[in-house]
């Protein structure tokens, strides 16, 4: 049963987290990876994922709220489950060999836990399950990210998105008294505040998918290890945003402008990523920009049709991952040199890496051309054009021309070991066995790509790498600081000074304190000064007598 397999993965993940071993890290990580592979081998079959038994758990059943947790096999579950499961497995495998020594087992556990949360998200039939799965992915990613600045950005965007989504769900639940995904659809037809819901929902999707203006956390994934960065991108949050968009796409059908906004942001993301990948020197940042470009394409396709998205889903993220993998080959070969400006002329030493890159291009073209005549073909062609222009210009900078590499780097330059090429070869083999041998257009495309590598005018933009200000610029962070953080801080400080100090401390508290001091002083005078005291006490006594006599009907 699917739910049982997910439980096994969960237990395995928890086991890896609890029993972190300092000794024999690699062996333990391999054991966990093999165990996960076994579970996934039996799980990722049509019998389990499509025709398997559904699991329903009556989680909360009170007068106030009812929630059922579901794990429902379906074709979509199969497609997305296979994608996420295989990415997790691949990254766990590479984590055994190429991640930080002390964190291998911990990372493996987190990969598995994130996988379970993502599967729960994919199979969710109600919005509470979607919310919980989204939040758990964020929490687990928070532990997986090790860079504090990255954590800051990641958590800010995602907590904001989570809270906005909670408002969306709360509004719908308050009106429909149901948390099912169908309730969202019903609400979007006749709900009182459907425009507000649509607005928040759009913002959640944009934040979660890391579209332009909200993309800082996505690009900052460059700061962590390659394996973790790619895993988070394609199997955690930006992907979770895409799945959210798919699961709640009824909003797109009911409120027209949401489709336009998402398409506009998708186009903006692709263009921004195109520019970013050309002007930023760091190759890991370039990789994240290309991934952002792909995320823009997937969001655009999804905003057009869920069907075309689901057709593409098993393949597009793999194209992104494989492109990232071949782009990291020269980095590994050049003793982890990350700056393209310190490469060049590598083709003489890295012929196999270059051939692997071309194999990937052929495979990607085969996939994309297969789907390029359906809905959203303009998007697909636009994406392909931007991506190839950008990628070929970088390949030209890396592989062609005169080398700018350090002498030591050049001396040690050689193709990475076989393990780096395995995924690309496997992917190529899988694509050509699934779609058939390369189409005529693929060869044509490949020739064009080679031509572009030889003579891409955009490669001249490498001069921009020398401008430090551009390399370090973070315009969105700056905007966010100026437009949001700064005013909030100023407002907080003004309120604090004005209300707490001036009004309460200086006015109320001080007045009361002085009043009390005055009373104490008066009483002291009454007791010390016998004559004044006797006079005042006599007056008070007289006043009491008069009050009792006149107002209480005599003594």
């Amino acid at each position, binding site marked *: 049963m699917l739910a049982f397999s997910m439980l096994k993965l969960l237990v395995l993940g928890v086991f890896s987290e609890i029993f972190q071993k300092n000794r024999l890290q690699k062996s333990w990580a391999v054991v966990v990876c093999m165990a996960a592979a076994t579970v996934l081998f039996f799980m990722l079959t049509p019998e389990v994922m499509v025709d398997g038994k559904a699991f329903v758990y009556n989680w909360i059943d009170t007068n106030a709220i009812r929630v059922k947790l579901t794990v429902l096999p379906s074709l979509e579950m199969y497609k997305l489950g296979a994608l996420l499961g295989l990415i997790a497995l691949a990254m766990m495998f590479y984590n055994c060999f190429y991640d930080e020594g002390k964190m291998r087992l911990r990372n493996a556990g987190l990969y598995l836990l994130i996988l379970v949360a993502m599967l729960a998200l994919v199979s969710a039939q109600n919005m509470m399950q979607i919310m919980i799965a989204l939040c758990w992915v964020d929490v687990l990613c928070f532990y997986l990210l090790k860079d504090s600045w990255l954590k800051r950005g990641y958590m800010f965007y995602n907590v904001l998105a989570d809270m906005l989504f909670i408002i969306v769900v709360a509004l719908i639940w308050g009106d429909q008294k149901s948390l099912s995904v169908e309730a969202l659809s019903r609400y979007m037809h006749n709900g009182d505040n459907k425009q507000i819901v649509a607005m928040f929902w759009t913002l959640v999707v944009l934040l979660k998918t890391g579209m332009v203006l909200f993309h800082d956390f996505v690009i900052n994934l460059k700061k962590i290890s390659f394996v973790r960065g790619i895993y988070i991108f394609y199997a955690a949050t930006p992907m979770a945003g895409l799945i959210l968009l798919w699961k709640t796409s009824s909003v797109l059908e009911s409120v027209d402008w949401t489709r336009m906004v998402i398409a506009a942001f998708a186009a903006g993301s692709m263009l921004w990523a195109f520019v970013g990948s050309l002007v930023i020197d760091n190759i890991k940042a370039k990789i994240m920009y290309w991934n952002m470009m792909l995320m823009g394409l997937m969001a655009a396709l999804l905003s057009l049709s869920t069907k075309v998205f689901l057709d593409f889903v098993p393949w597009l993220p793999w194209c992104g991952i494989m492109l990232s993998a071949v782009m990291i080959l020269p980095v590994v070969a050049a003793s982890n040199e990350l700056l393209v400006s310190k490469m060049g002329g590598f083709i003489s030493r890295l012929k196999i890496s270059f051939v692997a890159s071309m194999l990937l291009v052929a495979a990607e073209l085969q996939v994309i051309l297969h789907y390029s005549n359906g809905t959203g073909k303009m998007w697909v062609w636009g994406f392909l054009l931007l991506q190839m222009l950008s990628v070929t210009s970088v390949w030209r900078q890396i592989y062609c021309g005169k080398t700018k590499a350090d002498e030591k780097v050049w001396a040690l330059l050689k193709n990475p070991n076989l393990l780096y090429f395995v995924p690309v070869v496997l992917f190529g083999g899988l694509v050509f066995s699934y779609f058939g041998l390369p189409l005529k257009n693929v060869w044509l495309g490949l020739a064009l790509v080679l031509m572009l590598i030889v003579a891409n005018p955009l490669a001249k933009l490498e001069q921009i790498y020398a401008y430090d200000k551009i390399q370090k610029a973070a315009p969105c962070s700056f905007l966010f600081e100026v437009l949001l953080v700064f005013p909030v801080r100023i407002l907080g400080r003004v309120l*604090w000074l004005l209300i707490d100090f001036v009004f309460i401390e200086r006015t109320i508290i001080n007045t009361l304190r002085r009043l009390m001091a005055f009373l104490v002083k008066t009483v002291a005078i009454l007791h010390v000064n016998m004559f004044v005291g006797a006079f005042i006490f006599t007056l008070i006594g007289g006043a009491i007598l008069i009050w009792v006599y006149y107002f209480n009907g005599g003594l």
Partner: protein
Amino acid sequence: MQPTIPYLLFLVLMPLVGMLFVMAAKDDDKTKGTNALKVAALAVVADLLLIFRIFTLISLKYGKIQLLEVYEWLDNPQISLMFGVDCFALLLMFGVHLAVLIGLWGVRQEAEEQKSRMIFTLLFLSMMNGFFTAVDIFSFFIFFEAMLLPLYMLVGMFGGVRRQGALFRFMLYNLLGALLLLAAILVIYNHQGSSIALSKISSVKLGMASEIMVWSSIFVAFISRIPIWPFHYWISSISARVKNPLVFIIANIVPLTGVYGFMRFWPKTMPDVMIFLVAILEVVSVLTMLFIALIAIINKDIQYKVFSFMTVYYIFYLLGVFLPTDQILLNVGFAIFAFLLIFSALEVMLAYMNTQQENTNMSTEGCLQYMPRLSAVFTFMVLAGIGMPLSAMFVNNFVIMAGLLNYNMITAFVALGALILVAVALLADLYRRKREDNIAKNIVSVADISTAEAVFMWGVALVLVLSFVNPLWFVRG
């Protein structure tokens, strides 16, 4: 019918008996207060066991007062102590006991004045139990005020160098509240000729002037306990000065009494005179939430951030209490239970960090880099605190939020804005403590939490996760 075993009386007396034992405990240079601490912890655990037992005896529905016990006190005026519980009160008591237990864990290394601290802690716990189990106005009033005595002593003893100011504000606000509540109770007593059950107060028919006087007094009395502007000042003052985690926890449990008071006194079908007050309260509440959350963003003092976190959530739960439905009150209880545990654990861990910082001259920035065990559990607590699905706060906050959105969308949005701001403030502090740049390389003597401490803290985290799965897990298995 009176139950054969007076469980609720035992619940109130148990900490008092523990207090007597603490008084008799040996406290010298050799024991350094450990005897007192152990006896206090034992008393709290015994009380917890009693709470578990009571949970098995009662129906798990909100508002159904059970296990009623009546003890005659005075003939003239006729005053009796009446105890009874429902699931909600018991859940809060459970949360308070666990919070105090976490606080005791936090001060177990402190030798100075340990005996006094334990005495007043147990006295406070006893009064809290009395407060939560009181079902008539006089019993309620007695415990409502009596709990201030141990708190006053604790703040006086452990309130830092500028405690006079904090104590002055504490007395000022609470005295005002006490006098007003006494006046309201006297008017009701005078009208009825006897004490009256809390649930019946709203059905008492008074004249217009008396009604205004009584409800306004009750309103101000409870509000003086909750850090709603301008009454927030006493608790913020204490929170900023008290560095002892146990005292901080106890001081910050006090606003819970205001929320609980409103819950017990305030009728769901409001007399006309109160509609105006509730409207004022609503506006002032959300503005206070926003105000405190904004200050939390700019204030670098983590004690203030924790205070802000608590204040914003207390007011949020108060807004939940004021919703015109009884259905979500148990959800408020579940959320408060998790909330008490989270803030207590956070406070204890922060105190540990402060100690390490003082011992090693370590800066706050990046301090968690030296303490990976503490870092993992602290991160968990912060994430649970900001409302991630790691504790009962998640689902139950959602239910309250939905209720608020249904009731008044603007109020709900402002409240949510405050919740987001306070979450950002807590996360910002977490990053500050976790950042790896700017950390000194030469600090070697920083001690991470021990295995036992890590197990204890992860145990608290486990309780929170269980409360997420099922808030009454300990009753239904």
